[in-house]
C-alpha cells in the first residue's frame, strides 16, 4: 500500500476510496481484504453480518483493479457495499433474516443489486436485519445486532446490520429497506446517515416485500455525499417493477453542493416534538439555528393528521404482511418469534380498518400538500429518544420512559404512508454518549434537495465523523 496505512482504510468514505483508487494510493483488493478482516473482528461484538461474501468480493475487487489500470473504471468501481439480507443476490444465500427462506439462493439479483454491480460496486456482506424487515430486536435465528455505541443496546431496525456495519466502518455504504422507518431508525441510533427515497424512486424488485404499498429501498452511509453517489446508480425506473416511477432522476452527486437560494424549511408546530428527550430537542434546535445561520428561512407548518400516522402505518403494514405471508402461515413455528407475533396480530386487522387507514393516507397527503405549498422541506427529529437497552427496551423521553415501539416509528411512519422521501443524519451525542439525529422530509422526488441540505449540515458540523468507541478498542 503506497498512499495510506491499512489502519486508515476504514476511515475512508466511498467517495474517498474512489479518489484513493484513482490516485493509486490503494487498491480495491487491499481495501476489501482490510475491511473484511476488520468486519470479522467487529462482528464478534455487533453481529452485523449474516453471510460474509469476502471470497466473491475479492474476485470482483480484482476486476475493479484491472479497470483502474486500464482507465475503464465505473462510478462505484471497487467500492465495498453491504446489503440487507432481504435483498436478493444471485448465487448468494438470501435469508430474509429468517428460517422460512433461510436456504434460498436466488437465481438473479434484485434490480438495485444488478445496478450496483454494473457500476463496479463490490458486494462484501449480506447484513443482518430484523426478520423479514420487521421482527424483534433479538432475531431468533441470527441473534441480536448490537449497537456499536453500547453493545447492551439495540441498533433499532429493521436494517440493523446495515446501521451497525456502516457505523463500525466495515463498509462505507450498506443498502437497507424502509417500510416504517427501517433505514432512518438504525441510522439515527447508530450515528450514520440514511435515505428513505420516495416510494417508487429506487426499484424494490428482488427485495423481499413487507408491505407493498409502503416498501422502499435505499442507502445508509456516513455522509450525504456517499448517499448521492449511490443514488445516482440505483435510482430510476425499472420496467419489471410495477411500483417503480418513470419520472426522471436527479444528478444527485454533481448537484449536491449547489443548494438553491431562498430555501424555506418547515418546522412542525404540533405533535412531532411533543414527545422528545430534552437533549434530542436541544440538538434539533441547534440544527434549526444552523440552517438559519446559513440563510435558510424557518417556517412553522401544521400537519393535523400526523398523530394518526402510527396507527395508519401499523394497520396498513399488518394487513399487507398478513396477506404476503398467508402462503406460509401454517409454518408459524419456523418463523422468528417476533415476526410470528406480528403475523398473528395481522389476523386481527379487519378490512374496515385497512380501508379506513387507506382513506386517511390521502388526508395526510393533503396535509403535506398544504405544507409543501409553503416550504421546500420539513425538519423533524430523527427519533424522539436514544437507542434502548435490550433488557426492557424502554426509551427515555425525559420525564418518563416508554416502550420503544411507542416511539420507534413516531417520526418516520408518515413518510411511508405518504410516500415522501426522508433523510436521517447524525446531530451529535447525548450526555450518555449515544447518537441522536435529525430528519429532513421532502416533496415526492425531492431527494436532491434533501441531500443538498444534508451536505450543507455535514460541511458545517462533524457529527457524521464521530466514531463509536468499539472501533477504537476492539477492531483490528
Amino acid at each position, binding site marked *: 500500500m503506497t498512499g495510506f496505512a491499512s489502519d486508515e482504510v476504514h476511515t475512508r468514505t466511498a467517495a474517498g476510496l474512489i479518489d484513493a483508487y484513482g490516485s493509486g494510493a490503494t487498491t480495491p483488493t487491499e481495501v476489501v481484504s482490510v475491511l473484511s478482516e476488520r468486519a470479522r473482528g467487529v462482528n464478534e461484538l455487533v453481529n452485523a453480518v449474516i453471510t460474509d461474501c469476502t471470497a466473491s468480493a475479492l474476485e470482483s475487487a480484482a476486476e475493479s483493479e484491472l479497470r483502474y489500470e486500464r482507465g475503464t473504471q465505473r462510478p462505484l468501481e471497487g467500492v465495498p457495499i453491504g446489503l440487507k439480507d432481504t435483498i436478493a443476490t444471485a448465487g448468494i444465500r438470501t435469508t430474509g433474516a429468517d428460517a422460512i427462506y433461510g436456504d434460498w439462493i436466488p437465481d438473479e439479483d434484485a434490480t438495485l443489486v444488478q445496478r450496483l454491480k454494473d457500476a463496479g460496486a463490490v458486494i462484501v456482506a449480506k447484513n443482518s436485519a430484523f426478520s423479514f424487515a420487521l421482527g424483534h430486536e433479538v432475531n431468533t435465528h441470527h441473534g441480536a445486532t448490537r449497537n456499536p455505541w453500547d453493545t447492551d443496546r439495540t441498533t433499532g431496525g429493521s436494517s440493523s446490520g446495515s446501521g451497525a456495519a456502516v457505523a463500525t466502518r466495515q463498509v462505507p455504504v450498506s443498502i437497507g429497506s424502509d417500510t416504517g422507518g427501517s433505514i432512518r431508525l438504525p441510522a439515527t441510533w447508530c450515528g450514520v446517515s440514511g435515505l428513505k427515497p420516495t416510494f417508487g424512486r429506487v426499484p424494490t424488485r428482488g427485495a423481499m416485500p413487507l408491505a407493498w404499498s409502503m416498501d422502499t429501498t435505499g442507502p445508509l452511509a456516513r455522509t450525504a455525499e456517499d448517499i448521492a453517489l449511490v443514488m445516482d446508480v440505483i435510482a430510476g425506473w425499472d420496467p419489471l417493477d410495477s411500483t417503480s416511477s418513470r419520472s426522471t432522476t436527479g444528478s444527485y452527486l454533481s448537484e449536491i453542493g449547489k443548494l438553491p437560494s431562498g430555501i424555506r424549511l418547515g418546522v412542525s408546530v404540533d405533535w412531532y416534538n411533543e414527545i422528545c428527550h430534552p437533549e434530542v430537542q436541544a440538538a434539533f434546535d441547534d440544527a434549526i439555528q444552523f440552517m438559519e445561520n446559513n440563510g435558510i428561512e424557518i417556517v412553522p407548518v401544521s400537519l393535523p393528521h400526523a398523530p*394518526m400516522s402510527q396507527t395508519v402505518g401499523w394497520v396498513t403494514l399488518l394487513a399487507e404482511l398478513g396477506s404476503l405471508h398467508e402462503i406460509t402461515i401454517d409454518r408459524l413455528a419456523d418463523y422468528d418469534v417476533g415476526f410470528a407475533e406480528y403475523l398473528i*396480530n395481522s389476523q386481527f386487522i379487519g378490512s374496515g380498518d385497512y380501508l379506513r387507514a*387507506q382513506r386517511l393516507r390521502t388526508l395526510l397527503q393533503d396535509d403535506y400538500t398544504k405544507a409543501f405549498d409553503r416550504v421546500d422541506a420539513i425538519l423533524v427529529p430523527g427519533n424522539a429518544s436514544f437507542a434502548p437497552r435490550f433488557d426492557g427496551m424502554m426509551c427515555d423521553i425525559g420525564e418518563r420512559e416508554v416502550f420503544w415501539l411507542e416511539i420507534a416509528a413516531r417520526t418516520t411512519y408518515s413518510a411511508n404512508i405518504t410516500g415522501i422521501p426522508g433523510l436521517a443524519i447524525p446531530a451529535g451525542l447525548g450526555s450518555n454518549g449515544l447518537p441522536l439525529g435529525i430528519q429532513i422530509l421532502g416533496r415526492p422526488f425531492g431527494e436532491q434537495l434533501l441531500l443538498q441540505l444534508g451536505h450543507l449540515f455535514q460541511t458545517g458540523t462533524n457529527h457524521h465523523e464521530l466514531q463509536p468507541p468499539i472501533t477504537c478498542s476492539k477492531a483490528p
Partner: protein
Amino acid sequence: MTYSQQTIREIAEDRGLQLDDAQLTGVDGFLRALSDGLSELRAQPLAFIGSDIRLPTDVLAWIEGYATSSGESEEPGDAS
C-alpha cells in the same frame, strides 16, 4: 375494541393457528396497545360523499403528481 384471550384463541384457531401461551399473551398485549389508536382511527370523521373518498391508486397518483408538476421540475425555493 379489545378481545378476550379466549376470543383471540378462537379467532386464531379459526385461521388454523394454534397459539401457545406466550403467543397469546403477545397478541393480547399488542392488540391492547393498538386499541387506543384503532379507536381514534375509527372515530376520524370521514365523509359519505367527499374529498376523502378516493381510489387506492390515488395515493400513488399524488406522489407521481409531484414528478410532473412540482417535483424535480420545480426549482426549490419557488414555494409561495
